[in-house]
């Protein structure tokens, strides 16, 4: 389940060109272009309402773009949505496991919707549950899970089809600090083991700094800039943080100037 498949994996996980989405008069996403290479964690950050979730919905085939193109896992989201769906995993922003089923039963529904062969369905489900530290509670109804457990169950579910690209929309929103750190640990574990690209949205800069290899800043439907969290200090000087860049790219630049003025 965690084996990387280097043989037939396209070099680029996500290739987005001039992607635009309008809802009536409102332009939610304005000409976004992105390139996410394989095997990295890519963060799309920005304030609420910046267009992150709409971008994810287009990339995951849930809503068609108004114009522009997006290829995910080697397929065009508009022309071949089913091929894209086969190859991606998705952890939505809201908690979305079925509370009236057990953890195992929740995963079984998806194992069958993805038409995994019957012979190894059970093993794959158990592997995914163990990977997310849920082996012991697999037969408990999800209504008795904590928020962090539900989130890990959803991540387990998103891994069942061994996705080439895993989408996570605000993966730790609404979780307490302990649960957040557990989810972070699991995501890092995935990055280490899986040959999959992870595309996540967040508005927590500590989360982006902790998890992401590349970060794109989104503001008012546009990509305002792209950075690698690991070399921000090298590029901008000691003490420069992702928070400062967030503010510079997505709004006022007061804070950045303030810091620059300090000795």
């Amino acid at each position: 389940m965690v084996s990387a498949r280097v043989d037939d994996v396209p070099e680029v996980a996500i290739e987005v060109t001039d992607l635009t989405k309008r809802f009536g008069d409102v332009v939610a996403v304005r000409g976004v272009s992105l390139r996410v290479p394989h095997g990295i964690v890519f963060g799309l950050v920005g304030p609420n309402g910046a267009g992150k979730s709409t971008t994810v919905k287009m990339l995951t085939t849930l809503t068609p773009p108004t114009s522009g193109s997006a290829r995910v896992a080697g397929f065009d989201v508009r022309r071949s949505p089913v091929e894209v769906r086969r190859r991606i995993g998705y952890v939505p922003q809201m908690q979305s496991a079925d509370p009236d089923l057990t953890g195992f039963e929740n995963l079984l529904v998806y194992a069958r919707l993805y038409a995994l062969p019957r012979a190894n369905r059970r093993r794959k489900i158990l592997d995914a549950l163990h990977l997310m530290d849920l082996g012991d509670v697999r037969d408990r109804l999800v209504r008795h899970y904590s928020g962090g457990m539900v989130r890990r169950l959803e991540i387990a579910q998103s891994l069942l089809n061994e996705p080439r690209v895993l989408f996570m929309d605000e993966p730790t929103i609404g979780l307490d600090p302990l649960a957040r750190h557990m989810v972070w640990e699991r995501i890092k574990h995935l990055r280490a083991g899986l040959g999959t690209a992870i595309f996540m949205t967040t508005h927590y800069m500590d989360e982006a700094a902790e998890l992401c290899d590349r970060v794109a800043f989104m503001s008012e439907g546009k990509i305002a800039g792209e950075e690698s969290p690991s070399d921000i200090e090298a590029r901008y000087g000691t003490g420069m943080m992702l928070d400062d860049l967030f503010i510079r790219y997505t709004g006022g630049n007061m804070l950045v100037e303030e810091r620059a003025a300090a000795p």
Partner: protein
Amino acid sequence: MNTIEAVYTQITAITDAEIQKLVHDPIELLTRVIQPVLWLMMFGEVFARVRGIPTGSIPYESFLVPGVLAQSALFIAIFFGISAIWERDLGILYKYMMSPAPREALVLGKALAAGVRGLTQAVMVYIIGLLIGVGLRVTVPAVLGMAVMIVLGSAVFCTFSLIIACIVKTRERFMGIGQVLTMPLFFASSAIYPISLMPSWLHVLAMINPLTYQVDALRLFMLPGYQTSFGLGTDIAVQVGVFAVLLAIAARMYPLILS
């Protein structure tokens, strides 16, 4: 896995999830027995004394049983629209639609689940029927025929309900619409009286109501000596035809429930 096997797996994934929920919480099924009990043991007992309802050689108490069974299956099937809205609110439907399963399979899975729930009603209605001393056909072919008609009728009304859910999108609006739809469906059918009694405008409504054909077929399979009004072939053809059209519409509309 070939395509047919894959689609079968996808359809039953949805159906089995619904069945599993009933297994975890069977109390809800018991509460569903109240309505048929009221209709058969109160309404039926009183109206049987009226002796003004022409049901031929069949006593009114018996005539009513298939109608009440169809009614309770209808009410359960119509509930699936609300449960779809609830699943949308929980984010479950987003993930269903993000899977490679065809929309038709997702709808069909729900339709079959409504059928299974309808069958649990059938078990209870047969038990009530026996308790109040109604003569029901209990041969294997008759019971199988009844079961098929319950599944078919439930599939029709469940799919109809999903379409309504895709249009109204909120639970509150659905509750209102659901009331407005189910009672006329029930009264403008042959469920509790023969349609020959109806004024002509109501008769027309009853003739385009799939429930009328479901009840006709149910009476054939449940009551000894019942002569069908339209013939079993017509009863099945109407329901299958309506279901095929509703399935095609629901599969197209299903993603709209997300927006």
